[in-house]
């Protein structure tokens, strides 16, 4: 079971200390919610985990291997998938092509055999396409399969982006606000997909989400960040009754 351990993470942007000694552990096959007010440093944590930022100090262990200092593509190759707060798909190509890009780490064929679509390359394409079709079925986006991403509704684009992250067969998935900007129905669908990913595919998930109903409903464990500092961690029930969390969200009297 893949396990992600964040130890004493610090990062400074100029004079601002954005993260201050944050530590937590995402156990195998756990749905870990990361919440906190705007600007608390949640996305920064994701960015450090997948190598976009380099922390001032601290360690991140994926299955006991320190991944700090690896390049984002290297981190992706060892199985960290992610989606973004603002959809980062390739807007002018089809859903299938976007998902195939997610399979990049499995495709070994070079430019030459790729351009002539030779034996090995063809076989590789079929194997990967097969996996992608499984994901398409899983996310129920069959009807959009050959559509250009730009033309799709927002909620569906979010789902496609999730699909792209899934298509790299990650060990752990980092989701940055998967339900933002969605209506109730889309939110419910997304919550169901996230749960299914955890249960069916056995992937650990770390999720930032502002929709408290969703987080409290589906997360196994929640960590609360405020001004770069962890203020609480526990199961949804504990978090809901934690006075520090209530203060952070509702302000002081």
């Amino acid at each position, binding site marked *: 079971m893949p396990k992600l351990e964040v130890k004493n993470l610090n990062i400074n942007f100029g004079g601002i200390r954005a993260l201050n000694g944050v530590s937590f552990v995402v156990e195998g096959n756990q749905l870990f919610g990361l919440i906190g007010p705007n600007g608390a440093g949640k996305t920064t944590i994701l960015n450090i985990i997948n190598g976009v930022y380099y922390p001032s100090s601290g360690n991140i262990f994926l299955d006991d291997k320190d991944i700090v200092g690896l390049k984002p593509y290297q981190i992706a190759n060892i199985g960290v998938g992610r989606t973004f707060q603002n959809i980062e798909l390739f807007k002018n190509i089809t859903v299938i092509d976007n998902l195939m890009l997610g399979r990049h780490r499995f495709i070994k064929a070079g430019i030459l055999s790729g351009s002539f679509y030779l034996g090995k390359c063809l076989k590789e394409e079929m194997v990967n396409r097969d996996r992608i079709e*499984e994901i*398409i*079925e*899983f996310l129920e986006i069959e*009807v959009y399969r050959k559509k250009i991403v730009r033309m799709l509704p927002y909620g569906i684009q979010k789902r496609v982006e999730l699909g792209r992250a899934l298509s790299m067969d990650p060990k752990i998935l980092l989701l940055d606000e998967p339900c933002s900007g969605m209506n109730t129905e889309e939110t419910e669908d997304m919550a169901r997909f996230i*749960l299914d990913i955890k*249960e*069916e595919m056995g992937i650990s998930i770390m999720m930032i989400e502002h929709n408290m109903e969703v987080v409290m409903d589906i997360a196994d464990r929640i960590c609360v960040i405020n001004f770069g500092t962890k203020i609480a961690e526990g199961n949804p029930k504990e978090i809901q009754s934690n006075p520090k969390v209530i203060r952070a969200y509702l302000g002081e009297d």
Partner: protein
Amino acid sequence: MAELTLPILFAHRVKELGEGVALREKKKGLWRRISWDEYDTHVRNFSLGLKSFGLRKGDRVSILGDNCPEWLYADLATQAAGGISVGVYPTNSYVQVKYILDHSQSRFVIVKDQEQADKILLIKDQLPFLEKMVVIDMKGLRKYDDPIITSFREVEDIGKSIHEKSPSLFQGMIEETKPDDVAIIVYTSGTTGPPKGAMLSHHNITSVLDSFFKVIPISRLDSLVSVLPLCHVAERLFSLFIPMKSGCTINFAESIDTLQADMTEISPTIFLTVPRILEKIHSAITIKMQDAHPVKRWAYDQFLPLGQRVAERRLSKQDVSLFLRLAHFFAYLLVFRPLRNRLGLLQVRECVSGAAPLSKDIMKFFHSIGLMVKEAYGSTECTGVFSMPVGNDIEIGTTGKPIPGWEYKIASDGEILIKGPAVFAGYFRDEEATKSAKRDGWLYTGDIGEFDYQGNLKITDRKKEILITASGKNIAPSEIENRLKFSPFIKEAIVIGDRRPYLAALIQIDLDNVADWAQREGIPFTTFKSLSKDPEVYKLIQGEVEKANKEMSRIESIKKFVLLEKELDRDDDELTATMKVRREMIEKKYGDLIERLYK
């Protein structure tokens, strides 16, 4: 022939066609073929598996879910094991599901997916007879640890190991099925009162098949797409019974959303449909043509009347002049052919509409584009079909002649009475209803109708729905409602007027099409409600009502109408599972609104 049952027919087809394609299912974007041999293996294994769970002769097994090959496997497997299969509408709420499972005393239920499984888990404690739930698609359910759940795969695996030990067991089970055994129970959708379970025997089914093939011979080269709910007797007839005799291929679309594209890829030769779908296709074409390229629109506007003229001449069996034929050929090449191709209806040679009356205008429209829609009449109680036009002998407004094998007469009050080997065995656990529907072997259909001079059956309306105005005139509301619904802007219309001085109507606008119109006209709106309340929309509908009135006698015209501010919904008990309006319920619910129409 008399000893036939559906499982025996199935065994014959498997023997005859073996490697041939029985079913196609779109999965992972590709059509996958399932041969008759594979079909047989699935049915056999599942049947043996059910048997090992203790299924006895005559036990009921409910099937709840969208159409898929496993639906058919489960249905045949149940029958082969001597059980009775009961289809449940996948759109039913858990309350309705509970009613049917409880009333049928089902010991087993087969569900498609998590959505349906959750309904069963919610009600299982109130169902003393239920022992096992078999789930076809286990996605999202693997973490459920309720002992009632088994996967379809597991049951098949159990059956497989039984078959390996005693390979002749299944054959023996099939041979034990008897023509007079009840094969399936079909619960009527119930426009009035709770659903009733009509029992259909193997003999009912095989006799209706014999008659049907005399009117529409279907071969193994035919194919059709299974779209309508399989728990309805008509879809069951086309997707399960007919292939057992003809060996034709049944296709399952990937999902409801991809249906249109999947239809185009398969291009079926037989198309079973209902008025609601035809209405939807018609209004989609009408609306889309407004957005089409001017040249296309021009061609469509020119050629549609031409098609209509040819269709009318052909229907009235007049000669079509050479010039007209030539022009029609161009119209076909330029407009009708691509249009039908787009709809996936290019190869259709038999298009049958049933379940509800179809408006004449819709029918004329489809004939104009060369799709010879025919209306069939039948009911669950007569195993699906009573009358249907033969070949191109179609008289619009009638449901053709009774198919061979039926005796029939019209009662003094106009009710259609029929007699024959396909009249159902009775309602399950409802002696009283059986007695009132079946007297001296005659089935009282509850429909009013008459035969024209050519012997074509013309259905007036449901007996219960005939309106008698204050002036004493009998009026069939469905025909008027259909005229109204021909307008792309009207989705549903309910004509009122029983013991009233004039006719009025409750109208539900078609949200998509009216919204589209409002955008064109620059009328601001936010929701269905605001759109329905808009005076401009009222004027639009008024125009449509007046158009429909022109074609009707004065007494049949709609004097007043009101737009419903919400869409009729199944969940509010306003529509049945087959989307039929529950008149009584609506008249009660919108009583105030109706009163205002008569002030």
